[in-house]
């Protein structure tokens, strides 16, 4: 069936099957491979995108539920001119990524978390990304990134 939604600020119409997951639709049908798939049990968070501003695991979201929604993936976070979102910039500055595979989901979760908790403690930041696995960094620099990114988002606002 044909569904229409807004993806990274642009309206899209895409033909999906009833069983198609949002992660597969953005990756395979819409060619945005920044959203990653790291598990099949909804545990790792590599697939996190925003639906109407809230972070969601796209591997567990049926695409047909998106009619009329606003979806943002990692590709839609930087400004159209290529300027990084403050959270992306914070991950760069704080060395919050190594292999980069968890990074899109991690950043999307962090942006949503920071928008609701603009001044987190380290423990709150760690709890805020508890649904995202990273095997490389040991999380320490990711927590620093979330805090620094939240601070930068406050300034931008």
């Amino acid at each position, binding site marked *: 069936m044909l569904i229409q939604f807004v993806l990274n600020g642009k309206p899209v119409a895409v033909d999906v*099957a009833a*069983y198609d997951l949002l992660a597969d639709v953005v*990756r395979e049908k819409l060619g*945005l*491979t*920044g*959203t*990653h*798939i*790291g*598990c*099949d*049990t909804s*545990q*790792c968070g*590599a697939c996190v995108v925003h639906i109407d501003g809230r972070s969601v695991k796209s591997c567990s979201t049926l695409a047909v539920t998106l009619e009329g929604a606003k979806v943002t*993936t*990692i*590709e839609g*976070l*930087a400004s159209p001119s290529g300027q*990084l979102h403050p959270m*992306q910039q914070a*991950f*760069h*500055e*704080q*060395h919050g*990524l*190594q*292999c*980069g*595979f*968890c*990074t*899109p989901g991690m*950043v999307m979760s962090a942006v949503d978390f920071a928008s609701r908790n603009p001044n987190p403690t380290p*423990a709150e*930041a*760690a*709890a805020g*990304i*508890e649904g*995202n*696995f*990273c*095997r*490389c*960094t*040991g*999380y*320490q*620099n*990711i*927590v*620093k990134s979330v805090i620094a990114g939240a601070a930068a988002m406050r300034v931008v606002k």
Partner: protein
Amino acid sequence: MNHPAGIEGAVTNPTGIGASMRRKEDMRFLMGRGNYVADIKLPDMTAGVFVRSPHAHARIVSIDKKAALAMPGVVDVLTGEDLKTDGVGGLPCAWPVVGKGGAPTKEPAHPAIAQGKVRYVGDAVAFVIAESLAQARNAAEAVVVEYDVLPAVVGVLDAIKPGAVAVFDDIPDNVCVDWELGDKHATEAAFKKAAHIARISLVNNRLVGNPMEPRAAIGAFDRSRGQHTLYTTSQFPHIVKLLMGNFVLNIPQHKLRVVSPDVGGGFGVKQFHYAEEAVVTWAAKRLGRPVKWVCDRSEGFISDAHGRDHVTEAEMALDENGKFLALKVSTIANMGGYLSTFGPNIPTNLYGPLLAGVYTTPAIYCEVKAVFTNTVPVDAYRGAGRPEATFVLERLVDVAASELGIDKAEIRRRNMIPSNAYPYQTPVMMEYDSGDPGGCLTKALANADWNGFPARKAASAAKGKLRGIGLCTYVEACGLAPSRIAIRLGVRGGLFESAAVRVHPTGQVTVLMGSHNHGQGHETTFAQIVSERLSIPAENIEIVFGDTDKVQFGLGTYGSRSLAVGGSALWKATDKVIAKGKKIAAHMLEAADTDIEFADGMFSVAGTDRAKSFAEVALSAHFPVDYPLEILEPGLEEQAFYDPVNFTFPCGAHIAEVEIDPETGVVELLSYVCVDDIGTVINPMIVDGQITGGVVQGVGQALYEDCVYDPESGQLLSGSFMDYCMPRADHVPKVSVETHITKCTHNPLGSKGCGELGTIGSPATVINAVVDALSHLGVNHIDMPASPHRVWRVINEAGGAARVAQ
């Protein structure tokens, strides 16, 4: 992030050696523009799905493809019989070892798709190819496999029992190799003189490496050129090309290209030649269409090589002053249902020689039985053999210290190799070139406030909590590996590394590296080395890797080798560029090339102000209008291969503090302090990230992760992220990283490597802390992971929570 405080690095050039420059590779990952294998789409591509055995051990009676072939979109269904018909060979073992009395490693056939028998849950039995992934998945359900289920053997202790089920009919005792190292007689003699003998029995828990990117492979075949391409999630594309082309598929090397693009973490799991790589490459040629396979996570649990899985008995002989006289270790190591690429080498060559640690123990004897079981093949996982050795040694040292009533830091000091004794020959093969473990220990004790621990323990006790402190020192052998030593140890190939530096006419540089970047920051670190040597900014340097058609033969990334070996190759290549540049400058400046000096980006005639810049020399090299061609070649591109003369030996001291809730058994890790000697640091920020990440992976082994099989059926019980506990952000404490550097004496950088030391030191450190917290209950060991259930049980078996508040 500022320059991490504790990591040494002198900075003169903001993108040179010692600078905490931000990573060049970050941008594409942050913007969702990484290029992982699963992201690749080729025209006319098909999707493949493996049908895998649900049984640990069974005879394949029949495979009926008919129903599957009739399903919509199905292109083909391939089995082990088809492999046989096409003459496809088995997967080779690249590092067999020599057992007792010169006995060879047993290397049973390892077909890429099972033939006749399946030997673990997850063993591939068929490969279904369809137009779409959904169609392939549906059709995989329709492949009818009839099995004659056989009893399985799962644990290593069961595998060596007389009359145990044999994984291979022609290996009735399941022993792959029975290996030994060290002087048995000297060790026995020392035990006879011992004033005290400390003993331990322990299990090194089996782990699943779980890089966040699941494995994936795409095969493609270009009929017009007869050219195969494999895209794969590999840490070493050249070795896959060699092993697969030469031993499995019989593809001449010039007709095979292997591309390993962005790879989402490896940790050893992606440094083997896997069956799926050969199957997609073979299938693509049969079909004349690209074939893509992407592993599901649950499929990864039953098809990625696992790590660790040892059962060990060890004894240490000490004199009355706590001096180590001898060490005796006997280990049974799991190989799984077939040999993975490096399987037998891990619990032998990468384990036994590390049992000396940083101590002067004069006599060591180690024997290892590597055994087959009906489980996924076991191979290297971050640290590979060295965490297991460190765990045995450092647990045993703690047991000895408690039994003799000697402070745990003091007993280590009494036995430590003094810094002035380097180079130091151990009784188990290795000659350590440099190190100062005592210096690392002193700093670590200070950073962790070792002496202030009793007050903190009392404060925890006042809250009803049990506090423990754990210490571990370690040494690792990295920089794999000197070919001439490794070949004596059984490896089938060299272990050098390569680099090429291509200077463009405009002075920018492309660097081709034989090592592979999958998170370690090579694109930054290697650019910093070139920036330092050639005095050009890192932004003018591009690092290329992971494509055998672009990059000269190289051995890839594992064993903390990329900097120590690959970086040394790069150093040599820049030496050659400078030497060639001097010749060009000499011609341009009408001087003798022996009079040319290169410094700060300028080639100058010694003692004069006559000079040409690097960019001018690069330009001249490409416009050689007046070159004396008989003595000066145009162009400025140099390649180097570097084979180390020894391993490198990072070492250090780690200290952890834990607090245990006796009511629940929950262990909270409060702090973790590392002081490590890793030789020259190129980028302190990246080093800090590598060490922290490694420590947390080791903490995962110590407290959370456990790969559990049902001991009867061989079913994997912890087969997904629902059951296998990965460390999460709220599990980990602040890790404090500091370096205490002595340089490697035998490579030009002086670097030793830092990728694995975190997983090597942390399991022993954390468990030593947990045992310390429980020691008043008479506990002298707890197996990993020290999960709440296990800790609670230990407390209760020792007399219950009521007894704990002392």
